């Protein structure tokens, strides 16, 4: 059997991704109906795709938490029924380093008090009566000063975090809203984004309003990709509002300077997801 076309054109993978034309999909279905080799290939490609999706979701979740300094996750939790959990999480994040440093400062202070260092330098050892060298931890004051500095810095960061949290809970004023129309260019030939947004110095929120084009779908999935074309964030189960818009509110900590894109996929009730639109915008520093 000649599988060269299927291999060369990644027909099975593109079928799994819902990227074949209707005619190609019909022909391929007629082929795989009796082809064990292609069915094996389809099942492997499907599993691989699902697994990669999950790995990407986990990586994105990790990146979001790391880059948003837990704030985005906490902010979302605060608006949910899990608000108490969010507060606990925040307190842990904010207070744990300070608490540990404070404990270390107390520990060092006690050690300094119990082992006072002589104000006069130690006499140089005579060759006849060798004096054992002083233990390296005798003078703890430099370390104490360093830890006090770290503690002050940690307290400053905690206050900053608390401030950000407080701002996240406040009603937002003048939230930037970027209304995006679908791109018209062919895939792989994207023009320079016409929509631009500049980031404020402090983290804030941005609303992306996506004009949903093409046929209606009960649910949509949106995937935000960054300048390196790697997924930065994604969400499923989205619905367009009565005016045909899907609005996403995102923390700007997800963004950085460069070109971003949002791929919107329709999730038909009884078929594979289909890409319905692509939106792009440029983030300027």
């Amino acid at each position, binding site marked *: *059997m*000649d599988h*060269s*076309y*299927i*291999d*060369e054109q*990644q027909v099975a*993978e593109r079928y799994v*991704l819902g*990227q074949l034309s209707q*005619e190609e999909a*019909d*022909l*391929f*279905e*007629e*082929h*795989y*109906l*009796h*082809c*064990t080799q292609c*069915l*094996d*290939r*389809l*099942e*492997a*490609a499907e*599993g*691989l*795709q*699902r*697994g*990669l*999706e*999950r*790995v*990407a979701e*986990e990586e994105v979740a990790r990146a979001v938490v790391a880059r948003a300094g837990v704030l985005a996750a906490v902010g979302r939790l605060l608006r949910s029924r899990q608000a108490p959990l969010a507060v606990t999480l925040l307190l842990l994040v904010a207070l744990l380093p300070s608490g540990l440093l404070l404990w270390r400062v107390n520990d060092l202070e006690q050690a300094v008090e119990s082992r006072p260092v002589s104000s006069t330098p130690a006499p140089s050892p005579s060759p006849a009566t060798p004096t054992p060298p002083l233990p390296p931890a005798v003078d703890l004051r430099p370390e104490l000063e360093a830890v006090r500095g770290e503690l002050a810095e940690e307290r400053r960061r905690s206050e900053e975090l608390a401030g950000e949290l407080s701002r996240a809970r406040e009603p937002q004023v003048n939230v930037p809203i970027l209304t995006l129309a679908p791109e018209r260019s062919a*895939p*792989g030939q994207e023009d320079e984004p016409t929509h631009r947004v500049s980031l404020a110095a402090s983290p804030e929120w941005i609303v992306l309003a996506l004009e949903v084009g093409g046929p209606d779908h*009960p*649910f949509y999935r949106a*995937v935000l*990709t960054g300048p390196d*074309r*790697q*997924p930065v964030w994604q969400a*499923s*189960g989205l*619905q367009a509002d009565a005016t045909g818009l899907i609005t996403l509110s995102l923390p700007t900590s997800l963004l950085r300077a460069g070109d971003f894109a949002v*791929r919107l996929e329709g*999730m038909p*009730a*009884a*078929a*594979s997801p289909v*890409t319905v639109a692509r939106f792009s915008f440029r983030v300027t520093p």
Partner: protein
Amino acid sequence: MATPETLLEPGEEEIAAGLVRRIGEGDTRAEGELVERYSRGLLYMLRRRAGDPALADDLHQETFRIVLERLRRQGIEDPARLSGFILQTARNLFLGDYRKKTRRGEGHDVEESPEPADPAPGQLTGVLRREEAARVRQVLAEMGTDRDRQILFRFYIAEEDKEAICADLGLSSLHFNRVLFRARERFKSLMTRAGPAPERPG
């Protein structure tokens, strides 16, 4: 290079015509052979379309019932395209079912609109997905370079075109195909080693 028109397996036409003829002559063994030959592919296609394993199973059974009755009674116009006939029967059944449900759903409010295929995966689905992700992590760890890992993510997740990925990363088509092939085969071997997967719930 082959074209899509040549996707039908060379021996398929003869086998299909033989099955159609024998079933028309009352050969019940041929009916069993037909089901065995096309069952897995038909079920895969129906599960993909329906997104509901129970519905796919029902349609699968109903398709074979209709196809066999038709072949016993009057045969089909082009016996060599038996697989096309089976598929069309299944698609018609699926569409009929979908239309029936849509008609029933007319006038319902948004809360009653169809759920996405997998809105809240059950426990078994969750376990299966975690296993798949673990296999994928192993495949990724065994891949030669970061560039190869990037190919997989860009193709399967960002859904970029092969040409765009190759141009961007300075790859040949052959290298791209090889990376996809190796990843898929490795994933398949890990799947096989883990044993047959339980039925995936919808």
